[in-house]
């Protein structure tokens, strides 16, 4: 019997040997080609684990932070930028700028010799000039721009800060000089031009797409001037950028930048440990210790201008009653949230503005007091409570690392005062879309600033125009409040602006369209061989200077 088995085995052995030989032969032939191919196409590059799909590849049409992080600073440049340390304006595509005495005319001198991306779907014949700048900005407000109505003419950031109502026209002085003429002087315009949203697109590319009747592809197959150019996007999977060989600033960008779209927090950390990611965004606070214990992983930490809040749909009863909103605000235990969600890595909010903003003033914030909350509820006519939905964002952002957990804590707190809540979750982009349509009762969301200007916390979030563009999660339109914001923008005098913003902050706590909860700290985990991925206190992630392998 044993012989039978050995027979069987030897027979198999022959097959297996055969298999091995052919496999080896295959590798041998493959290996002989290796050297040539390898030098031709290196796999040099960096993998960044991102938390969500980009919604578009044009920063003008979105304000979703996870999208801006991926596209804005990688594919594009803006005219000017803001220095993260000194908060002064720095030249980018514009080398110098001049504001007229009445503040209504701003002239930009453009940089010469800035090349657009050359890809398999577009080869530029000219460098950037005034036409590109005029095209990029006129798309936002000029109904005669052929691209204005592509994507439903929705430019949420610019519309919410009122920029589309501000620019009268943009004049081409010569090929490398443009002049913005405004209806009124506005103090925050330059900082809005310096945001990640105000990118310069290629007019030549736009014309080419329009002539082929492919305008809808313009925003999804981008052409910009940034350090990387678009290669490929596979939904739920990856975004691939290649190096822009003729980038005007420097030529040491990595050959390839790949975004691995990993929505699950724990998976992102695990991928960091298995070295499938070089950098990861927003590692959750619970896992920071596990990460920093590793020698080959560095955790960066930076103060950031942001706020996480709980907004009520103030158009929907019973949330249109300020007493109800106050009752809800008094019913939640902020300390518990700070411990369980932020793990001590956040700053409890004292106003909608973070303490590092120059206009910040601590407000008389609601405190955890169920008895008071119940009293407010009875006064509002709901002694027995009611039912509501609580929308929790599905991704981890700086201002709210774990909205689900926060929602569960709030749910249990609300049960104390007799309010029954249902937690609602959707995929991130669907979530944003539905919030924009104001389908929610209340939502846990937040805002990370794009500029250090305090207006960035008010106009894009809580102005009436923001309500119409679906960016105002509280659905709150208060003319008095809007007046304060306009007054603050109309003056360039810092003390006056501060005064108006103090009033605005006080009014928010008084009216409570949203409850500011906390200001998060920005984290990023990277391999110790990754250099040049600095965190900034505002705006999206920039990987322009990132390098690998140099210790």
């Amino acid at each position, binding site marked *: 019997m044993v012989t039978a088995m050995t027979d069987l085995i030897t027979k198999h052995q022959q097959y297996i040997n055969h298999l091995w030989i052919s496999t080896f032969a295959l590798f041998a032939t*493959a290996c002989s080609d290796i050297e040539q191919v*390898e030098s031709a196409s290196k796999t040099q590059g960096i*993998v960044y684990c991102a938390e969500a799909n980009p919604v578009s590849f044009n920063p003008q049409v979105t304000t979703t932070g996870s999208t801006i992080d991926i596209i804005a600073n990688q594919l594009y440049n803006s005219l000017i930028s803001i220095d993260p340390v000194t908060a002064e304006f720095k030249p980018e595509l514009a080398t110098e700028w001049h504001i007229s005495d009445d503040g209504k005319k701003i002239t930009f001198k453009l940089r010469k010799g800035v090349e657009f991306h050359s890809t398999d779907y577009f080869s530029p014949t000219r460098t950037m000039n005034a036409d590109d700048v005029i095209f990029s900005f006129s798309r936002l407000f000029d109904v005669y721009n052929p691209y204005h109505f592509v994507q439903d003419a929705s430019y949420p950031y610019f519309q919410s800060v009122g920029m589309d109502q501000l620019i009268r026209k943009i004049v081409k002085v010569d090929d490398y000089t443009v002049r913005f003429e405004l209806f009124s002087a506005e103090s925050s315009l330059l900082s809005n031009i310096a945001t990640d949203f105000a990118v310069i697109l290629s007019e030549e590319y736009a014309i080419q797409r329009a002539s082929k009747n492919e305008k809808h592809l313009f925003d999804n197959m981008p052409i910009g001037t940034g350090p990387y150019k678009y290669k490929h996007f596979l939904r739920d999977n990856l975004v691939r950028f290649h190096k822009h060989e003729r980038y005007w600033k420097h030529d040491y960008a990595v050959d390839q930048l790949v975004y691995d779209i990993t929505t699950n927090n724990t998976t992102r950390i695990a991928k960091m440990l298995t070295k499938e990611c070089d950098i990861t965004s927003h590692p959750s606070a619970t896992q920071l210790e596990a990460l920093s214990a590793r020698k080959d992983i560095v955790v960066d930490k930076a103060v950031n201008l942001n706020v996480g809040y709980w907004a009520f749909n103030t158009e929907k009863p019973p949330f249109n009653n300020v007493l109800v909103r106050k009752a809800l605000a008094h019913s939640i235990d902020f300390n518990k949230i700070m411990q369980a969600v932020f793990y001590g890595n956040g700053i409890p909010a004292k106003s909608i503005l973070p303490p590092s903003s120059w206009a910040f003033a601590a407000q008389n914030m609601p405190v955890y007091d169920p008895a008071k909350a119940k009293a407010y509820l009875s006064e509002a006519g709901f002694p027995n409570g009611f039912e509501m939905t609580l929308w929790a964002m599905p991704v981890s952002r700086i201002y709210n690392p774990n909205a689900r957990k926060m929602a569960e804590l709030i749910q249990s707190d609300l049960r104390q005062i007799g309010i029954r809540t249902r937690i609602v979750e959707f995929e991130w982009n669907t979530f944003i879309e539905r919030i924009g349509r104001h389908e929610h009762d209340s939502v846990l969301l937040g805002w990370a600033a794009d500029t250090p200007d305090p207006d960035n916390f008010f106009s894009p979030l809580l102005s009436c125009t923001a309500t119409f563009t679906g960016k105002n999660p509280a659905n709150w339109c208060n003319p008095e409040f809007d007046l304060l914001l306009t007054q603050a923008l109309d003056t360039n005098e810092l003390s006056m602006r501060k005064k108006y913003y103090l009033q605005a902050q006080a009014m928010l706590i008084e009216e409570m369209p949203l409850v500011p909860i906390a200001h998060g700290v920005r984290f990023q985990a990277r391999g110790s061989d990754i250099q040049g991925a600095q965190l900034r206190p505002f705006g999206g992630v920039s990987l322009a200077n990132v390098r690998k392998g140099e210790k």
Partner: protein
Amino acid sequence: MLDYLLRRFSLLLFMLFALSAFTFGLNYLFPGDLLTNFSGQINTSFSQSQMLEEKYRINENILVQYGAFLGRLVEGDWGVSLSSGQTVFSHVALLLPATLELCFYALVMAVLLGIPAGIITSAYHKKWPDRIISSLTLLGFSIPVFWLALLLIMVFCLGFGWFPMSGRIGLLYEIPAVTNFILVDIWLLNFPYGGQAFLDALHHLALPTIVLAMYPTTVLTRFTRDSMLNVLEQNYIKTARAKGLNRRQIILDHALRNALLPVIKQIGLQFSTLITLAMVTEVIFSWPGIGRWLIDSIYQRDYPAIQGGLLAVSMFVIFANMLADLTHSLLDPVSRNQSHGKV
């Protein structure tokens, strides 16, 4: 044989009819707007909705609607995914091959391991190889897939760092999708990156394949063992033994052929189980296959995608079963005489 084929074919038609009717019915059962469920278009303008109503024959009776639905199915117009805005069919075409690839390798592995293991256990019935393998299969049979997957990730990916834990290939390797079967695509490109990409793809395949192969391997081992033991009891084997044939001749030349017939049928039937298990495996290993997409779509209430995904997967399972059935009947003439088809 022709008679048999006809019977199978009519069964196939009936199954497809039932499946398409069910999918069609889902549009009415899902919450939300009927037109949106069909087309995946939301916030349509008035003229657009009219065009869609025309195309989907919404205002006519249900049979006409069903006819239009079938027509679109055949044309490949499966609507648009609510969450991505791309056509459902393009998603399916991209993702189904990834799932099939994984299932195919797992099945090959299960056959290569399971059948020899089954033969060994039957050859050493009630001796130590039988005992060891049988207990191992029992163990493998009872381990839930997701648990095994997590365990392997814990040990081999996070602990030792030997294997990657997600995806089909290192993302820095740029493999343009032609067939969407990753190994085939790499082969078509003539092994780019000096064969490294191929090795990397194999490296990524290893753990998901092992996890997915676990269950069918144990099933095939047990099935082969039972079938072999059954055949070894038959009179013709006794005769062969009496004639003085040695054990190797008896097992390989006489018993195995007959014993493998039911096993072959079983291989085909395993495909449906495999697809189900593949969904779990895909989610855990972030494998970009149809299972993960379907689960995501359910989570996002993406009704056109749920329909399309279900349809593609079930259609595939039906065809695979039918194919296995046909192969089986080609090899085993007796089974052709079954008067009733079954699935």
